[in-house]
């Protein structure tokens, strides 16, 4: 009887092994893989263009650097185009790719409220990769801030900037 139960135990053990062997843990969600393989809006705008805002951020411990740029319609304050360039891990590339998709066609006020948790959730990022989505959030904010700083410098624009509003909020 002991031998039987032992045999049964061993069979289940091997079967379990097989099962776990087949479903090897997938480290990335398919959306990350998709954005990594087909990143959207990769490229650069002229950073000296007055309609362009550039956000440049980095995670030094991993050696990642991320650039996100927005092109803004100065009359409506709408983001008409966005692009990014990221040198970093798959999660950082996917996060910035998603970020450009989300900011396109939206008002500047709206995009500063995009939270890293939304990006992370969308991409099902594991906890160790959360800082990649934070980097993307930082990049959006930095791009808006850069655009507003440019506008404030150009003559005839003295209204309070969005970045100031955001920081006081």
């Amino acid at each position: 009887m002991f031998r039987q139960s032992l045999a049964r135990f061993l069979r289940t053990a091997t079967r379990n092994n097989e099962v776990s062997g087949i479903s090897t843990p997938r480290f990335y969600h398919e959306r990350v893989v998709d954005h990594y393989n087909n990143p959207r809006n990769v490229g650069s705008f002229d950073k000296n263009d007055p309609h362009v805002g550039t956000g440049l951020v980095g995670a030094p411990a991993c050696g990642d650097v991320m650039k996100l740029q927005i092109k803004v319609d100065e009359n409506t304050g709408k983001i008409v185009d966005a692009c990014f360039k990221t040198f970093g891990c798959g999660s950082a590339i996917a996060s910035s790719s998603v970020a450009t998709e989300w900011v396109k066609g939206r008002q500047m006020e709206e995009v500063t409220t995009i939270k890293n948790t939304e990006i992370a959730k969308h991409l099902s990022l594991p906890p160790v990769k959360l800082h990649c989505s934070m980097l993307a959030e930082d990049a959006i904010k930095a791009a808006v801030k850069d655009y507003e700083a440019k506008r404030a410098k150009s003559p005839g624009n003295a209204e309070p900037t969005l970045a100031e509003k955001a920081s006081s909020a």
Partner: protein
Amino acid sequence: MWRRKLQFSASLLPLGGGATSSPPPPFSNTIKNYPPFISHSSTHNSFFNELNQKRFDFFSWGFKNYRFQLNLLSAQSFCSDSGKFKCWKCNGAAFLFCEACRSVQPIDQSVDYFQILGLEKKYDIEEGSLEGKYKDWQKKLHPDLVHTKSQEEREYAAEQSARVTAAYRTLSDPIARAIYIMKLEGVDVDEEERISDPELLSEIMEIRESVEEARDTQTLNRIQEQMLRELGNWSRFFADAFQSRKYEKALSSIQRMTYYKRAIEEVIKKL
């Protein structure tokens, strides 16, 4: 006062621990003294053991506690002096490994990587000198060498050997060494830090773009040389900043070094 306490204990040791029938030789002389020391103790050990067992059992509890306290004391106040570490088996002087009874010692976290590799605790080191020291330790501590010994000692060997490897890897890499020496000073590098320094980041962006766009080996080699130069410069800058305790500057040098190292890795991938 502590010194006196230690001297006092040294005179107690041969009396109390039956196994340690002769005073431990100083660490540096152990190799020279090794054969006579062993022959002396092996002749008398069992005799003394039996004789002393009965006499000193009564005191053993108090004595053990006293010895434990003493070990703590010596580890704290003399951690740079390897002669002050006591072997768990024979109570002789032992640092990582006891030359007298050939046993691997348990890990002592107060010993840092610099001490393990026999270096002064400073950033500028001769990287080439590490390998020899590392190999010497592995000849004594490697788990394969103790497979016939007790479970306890096999565990010590696994841990010590892994720690020596970690020490070698950490100290032979300029960035890892910088992070480690900062940690010893109580300054941790924030792994999740995010920066927006436009000057640094646009420089890095440009470098990474030039690596990406490089089409021939010559260009890649040129970039790699430039990166190695930067790495060297910032490594020296780190050494100065660390020496003068300017930890903010030291941390930013580590950031730069990490970025340049990443660029080098990318170049190597393409070469």
